[in-house]
Each structure stands twice: as C-alpha cells, then as structure tokens.
C-alpha cells in the first residue's frame, strides 16, 4: 500500500509518499501566499518523485497549517506524527527533540511509537528556526556557513537564552565590540544558548535514551554537535530531519486505511 503524509509548517510544506518498502518520494516547498495551493504543489511534487501520476492515495495531514487544508480530512497532531515517524526510522528512540521554525517540542516515545509524554516551548522565538534565520541574517552569513563556522569555534560567546530579541542585541554587541568576538565563537554561543534551553525542556519530561533530533534546526550539524557535548552522548539524526512529521502522517494514513472504514 502507498500512502501520503503532509506536514504544513510555518516555513515549509513537507510531503512524503510511503510504500511498503520504504519512502518513495519526498518534497519540501514554501507555503507561498495560499497554503492550500502550496499543499497541492507539495503533494504533486512528492508523487512525481515517487513515480506516481495521480493522487488517489490515503492521506493524512499535520502541522500548524493543517487546519487550512480542508481537502485532507484526516488531521493529526504534530506530536503524534513525530512519534510515529521517528519510531519508523529509529525504533530504539525513546525521546524526540523537534526543533521547528516556530517552536521546540520534546516528546517521549514508547516502544510502540506512541507518545508517552511531551512538552513544548512556544512562548519565545529563541531556539527556533526563525530565530536562527534571523541570527544568520544579522551576521551576514548563510545557515550552512553558520553550521560549519561553529565547528571551528575555540570558545562560546555568552548569549542569553531567555529572549530572542535580547539575544539579537547581544549578538550585535559581540559583532561590534573592539576587537569583535570571532564569528565562530558567536555562532557557537548562539547554538549553546539554544541547546541549554532545549535541554532544560528535555529535563522537564526526563531525558531518556535513545534521543533523536528532528525538525529543520537539526540540519545544523554544529548545533547538534554542541547538543551531543552537553548531553554527553550521541543523538540519532535522520537523513532528512525536517521530514519526520510528514512521514509519521503517511504512517498514520496507512494505519487508518488498513483498519478500513468505521
């Protein structure tokens, strides 16, 4: 059976086509002005990648914008989908740290790929993908450059982790002080502030190995590296960490289709 999962995030729409032997196609598109049109575009692109010509697949949607695509009636919470997706990729994972564009969510997953507990940080942009984008822009570098720079850091600049706006002021002062703080140290400091906040969140539900990281922010190797240093162990990182929720949605679509109509 082939199914489709779609994750409508605030920065990107992700779609996954899942077959019996694994993932057949994936795609990421920006939502554009019309979320519904963006969703159609993502689905079509994922189907093309999977070598399918038309969409009659069972489908489920998730993400902050899912409620704006009424043509997909089956909608699931992002946490449910992340749990399913990570269990599919790493059955040993018991904790997921999902760092998306607008929020960070930590969830504990049981041996069946179901959520045991979760907590999220959604009151401040610090530690989110949007925050990182802003910081990169401020320093005049790309997100990719930011990630590789941090691996060359000799120290970590002190950056607050309580407020994205204050963090921005601190970065500006590091850039403009005489002599300026080395860029790599500033980036490492930004990552460390995000990691510190994220690990506090993990502690609220209790850190349980294996730990996996997902979401677009997990694409930053430098950040994941600092997270591993602070946790004191290696984390599991999917090849496409931002696709895990869409994959979970595809798994749920499959489960529902297999159960048949109620």
């Amino acid at each position, binding site marked *: 059976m082939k199914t489709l999962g779609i994750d409508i995030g605030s920065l990107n729409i992700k779609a996954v086509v899942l077959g019996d032997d694994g993932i057949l196609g994936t795609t990421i598109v920006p939502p554009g002005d019309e979320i519904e049109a963006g969703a159609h575009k993502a689905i079509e692109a994922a189907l093309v990648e999977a070598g399918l010509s038309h969409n009659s697949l069972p489908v489920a949607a998730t993400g902050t914008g899912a409620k704006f695509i009424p043509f997909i009636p089956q909608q*699931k919470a*992002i*946490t*449910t989908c992340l749990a399913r997706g990570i269990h599919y990729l790493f059955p040993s994972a018991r904790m997921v740290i999902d760092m998306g564009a607008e929020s960070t969510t930590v969830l504990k997953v049981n041996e069946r790929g*179901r959520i045991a507990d979760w907590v999220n940080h959604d009151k401040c942009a610090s530690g989110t993908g949007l925050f990182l984008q802003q910081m990169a822009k401020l320093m005049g570098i790309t997100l990719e450059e930011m990630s590789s720079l941090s691996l060359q850091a000799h120290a970590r600049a002190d950056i607050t982790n309580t407020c994205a706006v204050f963090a921005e002021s601190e970065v500006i002062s590091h850039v403009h002080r005489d002599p300026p703080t080395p860029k790599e140290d500033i980036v490492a400091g930004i990552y460390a502030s995000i990691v510190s906040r994220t690990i506090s969140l993990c502690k609220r539900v209790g850190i349980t190995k294996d730990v996996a990281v997902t979401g677009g922010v997990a694409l930053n190797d430098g950040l994941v590296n600092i997270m591993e240093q602070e946790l004191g162990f290696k984390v599991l990182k999917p090849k496409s960490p931002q696709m895990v929720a869409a994959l979970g949605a595809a798994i749920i679509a499959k489960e529902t289709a297999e159960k048949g109509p109620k």
Partner: protein
Amino acid sequence: MTTIVHKSEVDLLIRTFRMMSRMNRARPEMRSSETLYYQMLAEYYSRIRNAREEGKLLAAHTVFFPTEMLYAMDIVPMHTEMTTWLTALFLREQAELLAKGAELGLAPEICSPHRGVAGIFGLNTIPHPDVILWSNLICDNTAKSGELMMELSRSPGFFLDNPFQNSPGEMRYLVDELKDMVHFLEEKSGKKMDWDKLAEMVVRDKQEIELYREISELRKAVPSPMSISGYLELLSADYMFPGQPEAIQYLTQLRDELKMMVKQGKGAVSSERFRLMTLFVPPMHLMSSLGRIFEEHGAVSVTEPLFTCWSEGELDPSRPLESVAMKSFLIPERRSMYGPLSEQALQDIIDSAQQYKIDGAIYWAFLGCRHTCATVKVIKEVLSEIDVPMLTIDCDIVDPTVNSEEEIRDKLTQFTEMLEEDR
C-alpha cells in the same frame, strides 16, 4: 475622604449579571442553577453599590477570608480577587486593570489577580471600602496585596494571621486572631457581633460543605454531568457566599440538576471520551472557549481535587468562632497552596484519579503562582505512578495576552490524541 469613581465597574457587573440571568431564563436548555448563580452575583454587587446609602460598612477582603463573620455583623463584603476574575471574564477590562497595576510598580511576574486588584483600587472603579481585611491565606501575594490596598484606599485595615498547621495550639491562636478581628470590626462599624447569626451561618456552612460533597459524588458518574463552567460557579459560591441562604439555594439546585442528569444518563458533553482531572484553575477569560474546546474533544473535567474537594472535619454551630477557624483548615485549596504540600494532598489526588476513573490530568500552571507551580513535578510523578498522564499548560488566569484559544485547543488535541493512542 472623597474618592472620584471614574467608571463604575460594579454597575457594569450588575448589569451584565442581570442580563445573563434574563437570557438564561429565556432559554429553557440552560441550567436553572446557572440563572441563580447570575442572580446571586447581581445581588452581591448591588449590596456593594448600595452599602454606603444603606449605612453599612463596606469591607474589601482578600480570598479565603472568613466572610461569615462580616455577614453576621451586617457588614458588606467585597471579594477583591473575585472582582478581578469576574471583571476579566465578563467585562474583558483586565488589560486596563493590569496596566494600572504595572503603573503602580507591580512586576508582570506577580500574581495577575493581585495586580488586577491593585488596578481596581488604583483606577477607583469600585466603591471606596471603609475597611480592608486581608490574611496570609492563601499566599504571600495575598499578604502583601492587603498592604497595597490600604495604601491606595487610605482605609484602615486588619491583617488576619493564619497558622499553617491544624494543631490545638495553632487553633487557639487563630481563634484569638478572629476575636481581635471582631473587636476591630465592632469598633469600625459601631455594631456588635451577632453570635446567634454567626451560629446560623455555621449551620449553613455545614450544609454547603455537604452539598459540595454530594456534587462531587455525582460527578463520578459516567458520563459525568457537570461542565467546566460549573467549576467557576462552585468557586464563586464558596468564595463569595459562605454561610449564605442563596448559596444553599444555588448548590441545592445544581445538585438536583446533576442528580437528574445522572439518572437520565446525560453527560456534560454530548459524547464523553476523556475524563479529566483539573489541577489549579484554567484562564478565566477562556472559560467559555474551554466549554467549546472540551465539547469538540469529548473531554469533561470530572474533579478538581485541590479546589473543590473539602477535607474531612466537623463544624460545631454551638462554637461558632472555633468552627469558622476550623473551616479555614478544611478548605480544599489549602492543601496545595498554603504551607508544605502534604502527603495527604498527594494521596487525595491519587484517590480522586481512581475514584473518578480519570484518563488524564491538566495542570494549569499559573505563572504568577510560583508556590503552586513548584508542585507540578511532584504531582506529575505521583500521577505517573498510577499511569495517569498529566498535561501542563503554562498560563495566566487573568491576563489574556498569555494564552489564546487556539493554543489551548492545539494542546488539548495533542493530549487527547495521546490518551486515545494509549487505549
């Protein structure tokens, strides 16, 4: 002293409650108890508005103050935190009150009802109180709030010191404190305490506690008959009308309605799927939204062990003062909010979880209430030991800028999906 009342919050509240009561009467599907509740509130604020005209002393007081004593002396009580809550819920003017609180130097981290209380006094939106009565029950915010109210109103005040433990020595101390308060009020009002009237109120206090227990029992039914909005009503009846005939009437009506619903197998939501325990208090300004959100998810709050379940203990009308003192040790909130969190409080939570067959718990972690937030982890662990998941929602019970309806809906969706998957 002359006070200019810029805008009568009290008049607006009276008008709103009368309108709600009229609207309810016109809609047969609404609970009669809810109509009574609004009538009670309208009457309460009418008494406040008319106090001066009727030559009665108006006493502004903080939460869990033994207002039976005021009613027994024909003094008109004005509950400061409830007035802020009700203003938030019904008049949506909390932003103005909180802004005034900020102007008076209260940091945003301080309990918002108390910032709102400061705002109410700072803006003169309530009648000027003749006396300020406050205590350390239930928290340090309460203890400090009274001082600020005295400063702002320039009214004389009395601080009632409540001990932590219910020991014979501490009970004697509290009774002495109450005697001092009676002297203070007799001096300020020129009226003597009517001990017979106080004894009658203790009789009604006993009836009220019994009715609360009956209502709690009825809520064990599957499906459970009381909606989340009933929670605020129960709190209001307890906080504002202790020992009052109208509270007995309201609670009796509510009990009878719930009894009928249980008999008919009717639940508070059309299709009960999740039985939830509520810990602390949800954002007041989102109460009506919560009703909708709970209905959408088939969720019902079946118990609030730390707020609506009274501790065991006897009141003796032949010893009214001692009974008023004893009652302060029985109030549900005391277990988690005042003094150390006892083993008994944790046991009560476990017992409630089992007796009410709950699927999950929601802890409304009110950011301004640091001492209760400190119990989140221990309560979560205790519930986890009996396989009851707990969702913690950081919130503010008055400030509308902290939580939105959508945020609460999303979190409840995630939580109920988790509960569903666990079945």
